[in-house]
Structures are given as C-alpha cells and as structure tokens.
C-alpha cells in the first residue's frame, strides 16, 4: 500500500537519501533502523510529506503523493504520525488533544468524538487522565496520549519516529506495549526505533540504512538471525549490552 521508488533527498548540497526503494503491504510492520545520521527519520518524514523529496516517487494506495491533484492535508488525515518529542498541545486537555482533529477536520460531533477518545484512552491505559493537561503527564503517558491522538483519525498507516528515544528507560516499555498491541490488531506500521528487542518480537520486515542507503531490506528473521553482511553484524553487536 506504500511504495517508494528510487527516492532521493538533498538538504542543500548534502544528499541524505540515496535511491531508496521499498514496499510496505497492508498490515505489515516495518522497522527502520541504522546508526545515527543514516537518514531513517528523514525517510519516514517524507511519507507524510513533512519533508519533500528531491527525486523518485512515493505512492500511497497507488497514488503519487506529490501529484498536484493530491491534497496534502487529506493525505495526512490518513496517516498517523507519532513524534519523538510527543508534541502534545499544552493548552488543551488530554481529551481535547485527542478530539481536536476529528471534530474540526472530520466534523465529528463532540459527543461522538469524546466517546471514541475515551475508548482509545482506555486502550492505551489512560482512561482516568482525560481531563488532565499535558504538563501534568509523565513522558510515557504523554507519548501514549500522542498515539491515541493519531489513532483517533482512523489512519490507514501509523508512522513512528523514534517514539521511545526521549523517554526515561522505565517508561519505554509502557509505550512499546501499546505499539505491540497495535501491531497485533493488524495496523500497518512503520517505526524508526533503536529498540531491537521490540523489532525482533513485533516487526515483519526490517529496513537497515547506513548513510542514506538501504543496506538490508528483508524479513526480521533474516536480519537478526544470521545475516552475513558485516555492517549488519557490527550494528547488532554494538547494541548488545
């Protein structure tokens, strides 16, 4: 359902993505990993056009997302994006954070939106925090609200940009638990993450990038279970404590 063909990206004169191609099928869970500066965050941001591309093509459900006829806002309503820094709206309560987009963009009446929001909050384990403000939440709680906020728009695919990297270690697991649950419900997911345990348990496919190029693109089993590529081996070794 998402297809990248020969995607290039330049920041000024620096090329950060080289000839990236790949396919993500419906219901598939893809993990993007690689050393710092490998371009994985940039890559995931091109999918909902938070970053543009300099060359190549990206198709979602067969439609070129950079085509002039495509409304970028409509595209983004169909893709959920979870940021490393959560980016909750501090001036709105938790439930208002979640219901804002459904109410204003999909014109869903407040009651229906709040009902759905409460369902999602229960699902991520924060039902009692509905009227609380983001400033009073921990990092792990904030990120779970951010996930609920994205899910409220019923996206076709969920994009995660290092969702646990800004969290204290003891809160990482509560967020990974939500993401695992989401994967089990057949959501199409693309995750940029350093959490290799999570990747091994939950991912179907791994895309491994170095310096803006895909070095390995295949099943999770093949990646963790005995890939011969020395670069992959080195990366995996560095991650073992």
């Amino acid at each position, binding site marked *: 359902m998402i297809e990248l063909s020969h995607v290039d990206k330049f920041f000024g004169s620096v090329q950060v993505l080289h000839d990236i191609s790949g396919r993500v099928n419906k219901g598939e869970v893809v993990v993007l990993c690689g050393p710092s500066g490998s371009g994985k965050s940039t890559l995931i941001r091109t999918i*909902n056009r*938070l970053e543009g591309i300099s060359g190549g093509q990206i198709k979602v459900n067969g439609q070129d997302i950079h085509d002039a006829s495509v409304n970028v*806002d*409509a*595209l*983004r*309503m169909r*893709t*959920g*994006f979870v*940021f490393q*820094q959560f*980016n*909750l*709206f*501090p*001036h709105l309560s938790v439930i208002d954070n979640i219901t*804002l*987009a459904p109410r*204003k*963009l999909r014109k869903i009446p407040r009651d229906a939106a709040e009902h759905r929001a409460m369902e999602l909050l229960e699902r991520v384990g924060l039902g009692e925090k509905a009227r609380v403000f*983001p*400033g009073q939440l921990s990092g792990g709680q904030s990120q779970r609200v*951010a996930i609920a*906020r*994205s899910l409220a*728009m019923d996206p076709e695919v969920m994009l995660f940009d290092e969702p646990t990297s800004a969290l204290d270690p003891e809160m990482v697991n509560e967020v990974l638990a939500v993401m695992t649950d989401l994967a089990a419900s057949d959501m199409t997911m693309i995750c940029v993450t350093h959490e290799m345990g999570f990747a091994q348990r939950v991912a179907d496919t791994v895309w491994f990038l170095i310096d803006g190029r895909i070095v390995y693109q295949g099943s999770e089993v093949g990646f963790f279970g005995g890939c011969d590529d020395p670069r992959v081996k080195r990366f995996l070794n560095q991650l073992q404590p």
Partner: protein
Amino acid sequence: MIEIIREYWLLLLIGQYPHGPLGGLAGTMILALLCLVLAFPVSLMLALGRLSAHRLFRGPAMVISYVMRGTPFIMVIFWSYYIVPLIIGRPVSAFWVMVVALVLYESAYLGEVIRAGIVALPRGQSEAAQALGFSRGRTMRLIVLPQALFNAFPAIVSQFVSIIKETSLGVVIGVHEFTYAANQVNGIELVKPVAVYSILAITFFILCFSFTSAARWLEARVTAQRTEQLA
C-alpha cells in the same frame, strides 16, 4: 507640591472637561487603551504577514514594519496630522490624529512582539498539527497563535507601557492629555516648575512602574508554566 495637587487635581486628572475635551491623566489612559485595542488586529496582520510564505504579503509587511520602526514618532504624528484630514475630507481633532499616529507606529512594534512569540514556539507544535491534517492556516489559528499570544503576553504589557509613554508626545499637536494639563498648570503658576514637573514625572513613574512590575511578574509565571509544559 501638595498644594499644587490639591489645587489642580481635577485639571490634571480629567483636563478641562466638561468645559473642554476630556484630558489629563484620563485622556492619556484613554489614548493608550484605544491604541492597544485598535493596534492589536493590525499588529497581528503584520506579524502573520512577515511570516507568510507568499512574498506578496511578506514584502509589504516587512516594509511597513521597518519604516514605522525607523521613523521618529514625532514625524509619524506630523504625517498623520497632515494626511488624515486629507483622507477623511474634513478637519479632524488632534485627539483622533493622535490615535491614528499611535496605531500606525505601535502596531509595528507590537507586530514584532507577536512575531517573536510565534517564532519562539517549538516547531514540533505546528508539525504535530500538520501531521494530523490541519492546514497551515488552521494550525496557526488553533494551535500556534493561542500559545504564542499567551507566551508573549508579558511582552505585550511591556509594549503597553511604551504606548503610555508615547502618548505624551501628543502635546506637540495640542492633544489634551496629562502632559498638556501639566503645561497648563505650569503656565498658570509660573514660579513652581519643579513642583509641577515633579508631579508629572512621579505620576508617570508610578503608572509605568506598576505595569512594568506586573509584566515582570507575568513573565515569571509564564516561564514557569512553559518549562513545566516542555518537560
């Protein structure tokens, strides 16, 4: 000094009203408040204009902002004195000329304050809104501006203090405000300039220092709330 206050307090407070236009300290405050209320929408437009992606809006907004901030306020007052009756087609009172001049001049500065507030907001906020599907305009209206204006509120109060101080220049075209009233008192008394102008200075000091202190207190509150939010 006490005698002067006791003798002329009404004149200093409200000018020659009802035998003349409302002036004195009341005149000063009315001018300042009118300016703030009328300048606010203009400054909002200027701020958004300067941040616009379209050069059609960005260019004029930048030019207006730079010209107003690079010209002495007295010149803006003279320009208004000359142009406003021309545009309206009939004579305009000094008071309203002053209002126009104040709005023109201060909206440029207020616009910069608002712009700074918008720019200071973390980029993640507008990115999160856009990632949900909000257009640029709605992102600005629902997410960026409410937060930016709240964060900029102490700076807006500081700017209000500047507005109060600038109203005193109205005396140059005969606007009936506090400085004008003080000059009138001095014209009557003649031998007590120290007392009269001390009253003038002290009153402005009390007025402006109060607002400035309020702005500082607000700044501390806002900063505390922001650090809590960003944590």
